[in-house]
């Protein structure tokens, strides 16, 4: 098996695109990388949902102060690069906070993973808040008016009438944010978080095969994200079915 495999890449330059001769020996870097990437992005977006909902509701508030606090947060996180945010949060915020060290699944180091999740979640919260706001605003204002005229309070009509309808608009966009996050999380490799891109870089520098690992990482990202976005499209179509009259 090993013989057959290695003969496939015989004579290939170390810098050629499809030199995957590192795979039998270093495949585990990529497997762990996939797990790390998925955990990082899913937990980040998951954690971002509740603060994002708060931010979105604050953004729609009647009070100018509340509106501008949320607006400022969203502006800051949407107008600065993720790499900058990550470095500042990792060295700044978590330079001051001592995290307990433990390993998740034996290879995810908490002192790196948690700052990464926090940075991605804070960033994602800003984007998800905008998704929520757009989703809520897309619900016809007649719905609120009807609810209010039935005697519901502002919060009750939001909770019972507007938000349930907004979810239909929000869910596909939220899933898209997850797809984006899977890709964006590759930035965490610069701070030694052992996700997919980090695995590719490590294998590249150990084996001196410089391009193949990147090509493989790209193929893996594609294999995760393409089916995911197709699935989202299908769900979206299914949810729209009720709209036809």
């Amino acid at each position: 098996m090993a013989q057959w495999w290695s003969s496939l890449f015989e004579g290939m330059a170390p810098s050629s695109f499809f030199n995957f001769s590192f795979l039998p020996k270093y495949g585990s870097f990529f497997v762990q990388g996939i797990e790390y990437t998925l955990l990082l992005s899913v937990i980040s977006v998951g954690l971002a949902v509740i603060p994002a909902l708060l931010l979105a509701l604050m953004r729609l508030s009647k009070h100018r102060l509340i509106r501008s606090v949320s607006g400022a947060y969203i502006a800051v996180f949407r107008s600065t690069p993720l790499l900058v945010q990550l470095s500042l949060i990792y060295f700044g915020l978590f330079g001051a906070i001592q995290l307990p060290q433990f390993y998740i699944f034996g290879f995810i180091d908490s002192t790196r993973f948690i700052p990464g999740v926090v940075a991605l979640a804070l960033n994602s919260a800003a984007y998800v808040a905008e998704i929520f706001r757009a989703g809520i605003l897309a619900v016809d204002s007649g719905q609120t008016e009807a609810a209010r005229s039935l005697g519901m309070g502002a919060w009750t009509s939001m909770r019972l009438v507007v938000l349930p309808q907004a979810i239909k608009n929000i869910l596909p966009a939220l899933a898209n944010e997850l797809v984006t996050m899977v890709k964006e999380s590759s930035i965490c490799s610069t701070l030694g978080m052992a996700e997919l891109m980090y695995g590719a870089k490590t294998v590249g520098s150990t084996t001196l095969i410089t391009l193949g690992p990147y090509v493989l990482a790209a193929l893996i990202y594609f294999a995760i994200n393409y089916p995911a976005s197709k699935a989202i499209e299908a769900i979206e179509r299914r949810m729209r079915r009720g709209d036809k009259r």
Partner: protein
Amino acid sequence: MKKWIALLLSIAMMLCLVACTAEPAGSGDTQTTDKNTDETTGTDTQDTQSAEQTDADETDSQDATTGDTQLTKFVMGTSADYPPFEFIIINDKGEQEYVGIDISLAKKIAEDMGVELEVVNMSFENLMIALDKGEVDSVIAALEEDEERALVADFSEPYYTDFPPMILVKKANADQYTSLDSFAGKKVGAQMSTTKADIVTNDMTDANLVALSSVNDLVNELVYDKCDAIVLDGAVAMQYAESNSDLVVADVDLGVAAPYRVTVKKGDPKGLLESINKTIATILEDGTMDAYIEEANELSTQALES
């Protein structure tokens, strides 16, 4: 009705995700010691285990200087993309392991201090920030002494003198480059925040610096004609020249090699430097260092074979 189901599902999804994050926080704790032991289990220092944790004389002096808690582990910052100095291999047990000259040295330093070694891996340009922030006790990453680094770090005695830096170019263009001046107007790559980047900016008149964080990407730059030459540490340059048949070391002399040193945070707040220097003096004298170098070169060659 459908809307209610959608709401319920989405809430359930949120709860799931929140639960995910909370759970490992409690359950993962027990694995700490296991993993640390794994990392210190080297090929030549099998006996460096936690048993010796308390008996070091050096730890006393740290108490005196800082009044802090006793040093329980030696945290080494490095950028493990630099064979043969520090890189990651899959060992015989199929586990990932940090190896290389600097890692062996760090293991020995930790052993002499009577504590465990922990390796923290990140991009090279972030290492000095991490040292300054106190996130690592020491940076050992084929570092030479220079002015900028001296602002945040104190240096040990030298432990290794490499070949001088070398310039890697394409074989086809090799005869164009005969002196530092022949790089005028050319794009020359070097690793970000290294002394090699300083060579390009200070010594090569009119050369344009391409600063990237990994050597790997620099080699891609050169192979795919994105830059004309790259400056690397001698040993590293020769390794890439050997594995890529179309790359050669240019016949340009970059002077004498600066020795590599171990760094600790400026002012040495944990009082580590004395012990580190003692370890370095010992291993240079009794030939242990040569064994480390030989072992690292061997492991690096093996890593190339698939």
